[in-house]
């Protein structure tokens, strides 16, 4: 059985809209590795996630690492592809045609200027789950309210199943108690 991809899950009840995740994301994708270091070195800060506000609720959004990803299906050059755990972009193959950006239902792909093989070019960038980063996704580590987590679908299903099963058992128990004490 293949393992389903993990993804970043936001808890909107905890998100305060501070944009710290965006900064952490951008910094994690620089050579300096920190906001201050990158700015001091003149490196561009390019986040892969985005904090939005829907009515009064704030939440961060990023790639959901779709299993049957439209971005992969439409890519004319094969730059966008699936690995075992996430949806990746090969900047060398990317021609910045924006098809992936257009078809992404989550608005999770941007086209940005970057240096690729010593050449300045535009290419698609998206969440790579900080696969290369020791300690996992930078946004999750940076979130001051712990609103973000790296979750596995299996885990989410199990948690949901556990929680509703507990409710179900409690309901049964209270019904028994009611019938036992008329």
């Amino acid at each position, binding site marked *: 059985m293949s393992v389903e991809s993990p993804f970043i899950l936001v808890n909107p009840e905890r998100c305060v809209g501070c944009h*710290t995740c965006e900064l952490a994301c951008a910094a994690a994708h620089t050579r300096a590795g920190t*906001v*201050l270091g990158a700015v001091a070195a003149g490196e*561009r800060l390019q986040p892969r996630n985005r904090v939005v506000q829907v009515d009064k609720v704030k939440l961060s959004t990023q790639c959901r690492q779709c299993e049957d990803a439209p971005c992969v299906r439409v890519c004319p050059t094969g730059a966008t592809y699936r690995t075992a755990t996430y949806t990746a972009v090969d900047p060398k193959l990317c021609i910045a045609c924006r098809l992936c950006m257009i078809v992404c239902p989550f608005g999770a792909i941007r086209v940005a*200027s970057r240096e690729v093989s010593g050449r300045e070019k535009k290419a698609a960038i998206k969440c790579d789950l900080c696969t290369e980063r020791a300690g996992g996704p930078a946004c999750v580590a940076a979130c001051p309210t712990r609103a973000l987590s790296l979750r596995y679908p299996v885990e989410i299903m199990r948690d949901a199943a556990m929680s509703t099963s507990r409710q179900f058992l409690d309901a049964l128990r209270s019904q028994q108690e009611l019938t036992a004490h008329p």
Partner: protein
Amino acid sequence: MTISDKILSRSVDPAVHDMLNRAKELGMETAWERYEAQLPQCGFGELGVCCRHCNMGPCRISPFDGEGPKAGVCGATADIIVARGLIRMIAAGAAAHSDHGRDIAHTLLLTAEGKSGGYEIKDEAKLKALAAEYGIATEGRGKADIALDLARAVYGEFGKQEGPIQFTRRAPEQRVALWQRIGIDPRGIDREIVEIMHRTHIGVDNDPVHLILQGLRASVSDGWGGSMVATELSDVLFGTPMPQRSVSNLGVLKEDHVNIILHGHEPTLSEMIVAAAGEPEMVALAGKYGARGIQVAGMCCTGNEILMRHGVPIAGNFLQQELAVITGAVDAMIVDVQCIMPALGNLAGCFHTKFISTSPKAKFPGAVHMEFHEEHASEIAREIVKVSVENFRFRRPEMVHIPDQKMECMAGFSVEAIVGALGGTLDPLLDAIKSGAIKGIAALVGCNNVKIQHDYAHLNLIRELIRDNVLVVTTGCNAIAAAKAGLLLPEAAEECGEGLKGVCKALGIPPALHMGSCVDISRILVACAAIAKALGVDINDLPAAGAAPEWMSEKAVSIGAYVVSSGVFTVLGTVPQVLGSPVVTELLTQGANDVVGAVFAVEPDPFKAARLMIDHIEAKRKALGI
């Protein structure tokens, strides 16, 4: 005892290692744990691009490449927001120093009126010298009369509208002319601070360069105004410091004594506490409770003030305040104003330690407030000492853990003392500089900051400089770091280059001269002005440089600004919250050279910082043709 790498990485001071280990055993948190809990710190804040000056905000400027807002709701750009934020820091720092100066002026006024509770004029010569500077007649007049006129004149500096502030005229003529030309000659101490608050209100001054210039003007009113007032009038009241030996670090606390720590910044109350703790009646009271005596020790700049005037041992610098409480041997931690962690209240609650706040301006959670008023100074001081001594009996021996580390030091190099050590004139120093025996002078100042291994940058920078024959003058937490490492001893001459070693040995002075508290950076300005005048040049021509290797406070921002405004190249060891603005960053690190003849550099590595300072000093020597 094995100490974890984590603890070792937090400080270079073994006393701190010992106490952090003890804190860990006891499950107590300190600034270092709280810093970790804050990580990662907000990137917008680090860059200085957030603004909360009005309620259309909070606004933030996006540092991202090509996306996100590039202006706040009112249209303020990153440059405007950074400049406003920076000068508000200057306003706060200048306010802190200057309000300290105001309190000293108030004490002098009360003393002259005969209304202060126990203060007297200890340095009459300095009183007369200052009176002469203010054009106050001294001939045939009593010291109270002179002091009354002087106190009123100095008091007047705070509310002055059109300037000039008298002490600014101690700067070389060229410097004063430059300040006037670029519009940063301050008109009054309070006025410049108020004007910063006005200009940074929504919709007032929105030109980043114009904003920064006002910041510099307020900073000059601090360095050559409020801070200098604090220093000079403290000398009049409490005596001008002269070199004396003492001891430093947490090992100065004594297991069998009542231990009183005086922490904060002002000398006013601490002078009286030191006196009260020496009274036979108090010592007898301590004996009654089983103590062998009363050990008063200082911390931070209050500590520097009483160290340099009375040789009172100094227990540590900023990041050691919590550790002092954790020794379990402190019967009272008495605080006034500035750099006192509100965390002390909770921490003191875990021990028998009485945490006593004293300033009408500063209250703390978990503190007993015993408010200080100059009119009843010695009475209040006695009461506070009594409460402290009485608390000795509640000490829990099983909670006492005092580290062994203590180090001798020599402190108290006021300008007057330095001139004295040189034999009454600056000439020997000038000759040593001209001959190259002393390559130049470096002023090392400032705080501790959890972002930098405690004392690491302070000590390595001093050592690098003296090794290359740069004479170091030091104040504040840098001076305390130097004391703990033995660098304030004449014996430290052994660590110097040959030229400086010879000078130190000939004069019997340490290669790092303890010039006092943070407000005493004004002493360094006075020394720079005197040297520049003797050479017939401006301060920015001198082979001199400044550094704040572990700075953190708003006061340090004001200090940095007035030191650069005075013409001294200054290296900062931690990054100020300005990098979000290309205009402000460029101005501070390059453009300022064309305006005030000096710039800032940022360099966390003390070895590289030393290189920057030495290169600067060598370039200045070359320009002077020496």
